C-alpha cells in the first residue's frame, strides 16, 4: 500500500471515529451521571455509586410503568401478528394486486403526525360507544398501526423471496390442505422476517411518548410517561432510568440483528 492511500485510509478512519464519539458522548455522559454520587461543582464526579440504579429498580412505580409498557407493546405486536400474517399470506397467494394498495395504507401512520392523529383519536374514543381513552386498549390499537409498516415491509420482502405459489401447489399435491400448507410450509420460512419486524417495532414502540401521554397519560403510566413525570426529580435518578431503558432496547436490537443473520 502506498503512503498516499495509507493517509487517506487513516483520514477515513478518523472521520468515522469522530462521528462515533460525537454520537456516543451524550450517552457516556448520561451513564457517568447516573453512576455519580454528586457531579455539580467539579470537573469529574466526586464519587461513583450504584444507588440510583438500586433506587430505580426498587421503585414500584417504575416497575409498574415498565410492566405497562411491556403489556402495551407485546399486546400491539400480538395483534399485529394475528392480523397481519394471515392478511399478507392471502394477499400474496390470492390477491397480489392488492399489494400496491397495502403499500399506500401502511404509510398512513407515518403520513399523519402523532399529535394530529392523537387529537382525532381523543375525539373519537373519549365517549361514544367505545370509550377507550385512558385505557391500555387505545394504546394497543394505536401502536398496532405504528407497527404495521415495519411488519409489512419485512414480511413482504421475505414472502417475495419465497415462491409461494409453487410451494403451495407442491404441498397441495402431496396431500396438504391450504391451512396445513400455509402453516407447515410458508409460515416457518417467514420466521426470520417476522422476528426482525417484531424486534424493530418493539424498540420503536417502547420509546413512544406522544400517543401514550396524550391518550392515556397518568391513568396507565408507561415508561416514557413515567420518565416525563419524574423530570423534576433527581437528575441522577432519571439518568439511571434513561440508561436502563437504553440497555433494554440495545439488548432487543442486538437479538434482532443476531436472528436476522443466516444460521449457516
Amino acid at each position, binding site marked *: 500500500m502506498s503512503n498516499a492511500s495509507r493517509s487517506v485510509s487513516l483520514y477515513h478512519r478518523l472521520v468515522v471515529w469522530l462521528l462515533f464519539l460525537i454520537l456516543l458522548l451524550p450517552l457516556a455522559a448520561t451513564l457517568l451521571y447516573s453512576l455519580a454520587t454528586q457531579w455539580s461543582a467539579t470537573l469529574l464526579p466526586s464519587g461513583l455509586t450504584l444507588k440510583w440504579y438500586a433506587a430505580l429498580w426498587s421503585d414500584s412505580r417504575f416497575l409498574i410503568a415498565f410492566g405497562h409498557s411491556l403489556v402495551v407493546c407485546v399486546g400491539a405486536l400480538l395483534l399485529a401478528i394475528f392480523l397481519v400474517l394471515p392478511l399478507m399470506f392471502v394477499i400474496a397467494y390470492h390477491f397480489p394486486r392488492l399489494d400496491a394498495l397495502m403499500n399506500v395504507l401502511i404509510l398512513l401512520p407515518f403520513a399523519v403526525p402523532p399529535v394530529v392523529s392523537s387529537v382525532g383519536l381523543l375525539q373519537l374514543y373519549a365517549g361514544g360507544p367505545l370509550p377507550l381513552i385512558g385505557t391500555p386498549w387505545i394504546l394497543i390499537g394505536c401502536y398496532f398501526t405504528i407497527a404495521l409498516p415495519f411488519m409489512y415491509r419485512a414480511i413482504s420482502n421475505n414472502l417475495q423471496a*419465497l*415462491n409461494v405459489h*409453487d*410451494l403451495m*401447489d*407442491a*404441498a*397441495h*399435491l*402431496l*396431500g*396438504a*390442505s391450504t391451512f*396445513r400448507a400455509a402453516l*407447515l*410450509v410458508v409460515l*416457518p*420460512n417467514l*420466521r426470520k422476517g417476522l422476528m426482525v419486524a417484531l424486534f424493530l417495532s418493539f424498540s420503536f414502540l417502547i420509546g413512544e411518548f406522544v400517543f401514550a401521554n396524550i391518550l392515556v397519560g397518568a391513568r396507565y403510566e408507561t415508561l416514557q410517561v413515567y420518565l416525563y413525570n419524574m423530570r423534576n426529580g433527581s437528575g441522577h435518578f432519571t439518568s439511571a432510568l434513561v440508561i436502563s431503558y437504553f440497555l433494554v432496547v440495545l439488548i432487543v436490537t442486538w437479538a434482532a440483528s443476531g436472528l436476522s443473520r443466516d444460521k*449457516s
Partner: protein
Amino acid sequence: MSFLSVKQLHKSYGSTMIFQDIEFSAKQGELVTLLGPSGCGKSTLLRCLAGLTPVNGGRILLDGQDIAALSPQKRGIAMVFQSYALFPNMTVAQNVAFGLKMQKVDRQTLIRRTAEAVELVELKGFEGRYPHQLSGGQCQRVALARSLVTRPRLLLLDEPLSALDARIRRHLREQIRSLQQELNLTTLFVTHDQEEALTMSDRIVLMQEGRIVQSGDAETLYTAPATLFAAGFMGNYNILDAAQASALLGHNFGQQVAIRPESIRINASEGPSAEIIGHTLLGNVIRYRVRTMGIELLVDVLNHDASALRTRGTHVTLGIDLSAAREVA
C-alpha cells in the same frame, strides 16, 4: 386399454383460449411428452391434470375414474416443478417425507419409505441437508423423490430440466427415464426441447397455440411431420414450395415439401449440382448451406474426418431420395 385418457378438454381465461379439444391417452407405464413452444398451453394443461387449475370442460379419466372434479389432494397425482419447489425450511429427508406425513402413515413405514426414495435418486448421505446446501441437479432429484414416495398413479414433470446446465440435464434425463421404466410409472413430461422429447418419450404430443398438432411415437414425429409447424419444430427441415420441389426432385408435388438435412448426400454420382456457400460445425455433424437452382438447402454430413471439410465455393453433386421428401400441409 389406456390408463389415462383426456377427452375434449378445454380451458380459457375470459375470451382468451388457452387450449381446446385436447384429446390424448397414455397406457400404464408410458412416458408421454407434451412438446411445444412456450405459450402453447402445455404447462397449463399439466396444471389442469394435476387439479391446480380448473378446466372449463372435458373429462380426465385416470384408471377408469373421472378426476376432473376432484381436488388436487385426492387425485393421486404427483408433480415435479421447474423451480423445484422444495420446502426451504425442511431437510432433504423432511421434504421427501412430507407426503407420507400428510397421509398419516405410521412412523416406521415413513422412515423406511423415505429412505428407499432417497436411495432411489442416489442421494443417500444427504438426508440432513437443507435445499440451499444442494446443487440444482440434487434439488431436482429431491423433488423427484418427494413425488415418488407417495406412490402416485400419475407423475407430471413440468420442464424439470430447464433450469439445469447441459451435462446435468443429460444425466438426470437418463435417470428419470430409467426410474420411470423401473417403477412402470405412467408419466407426462412437458418440455419445449425437441431433443429431450425425442430421447425420453414413448410418445410425443406436439402442441401449437392450444391445440394438438400431431401425436405419435418419436420416430413418426421426426420422420413424418404432418404439418409445416411440426416439420419446423422437430428438426431443421428444408421447406420447399411445390414448384421448387418439383423442379429439384423431378416429380410433381401439389403441396409444400419438407426434406430432412441428413437425408441429402453431397457426394452422389449423379443428381443436381450445387455450390457450397457456408458451413457450421455442430460437433459430430457438419451442417452445410448449399445452393442449387436458386434454392438454398441445409445438408447434414457426419464429421468423419477434418480433411473432408468442403470449403465455400466447392461444387458438389446432391443426392436426394424421393422417399426422403415429405409433403406437409
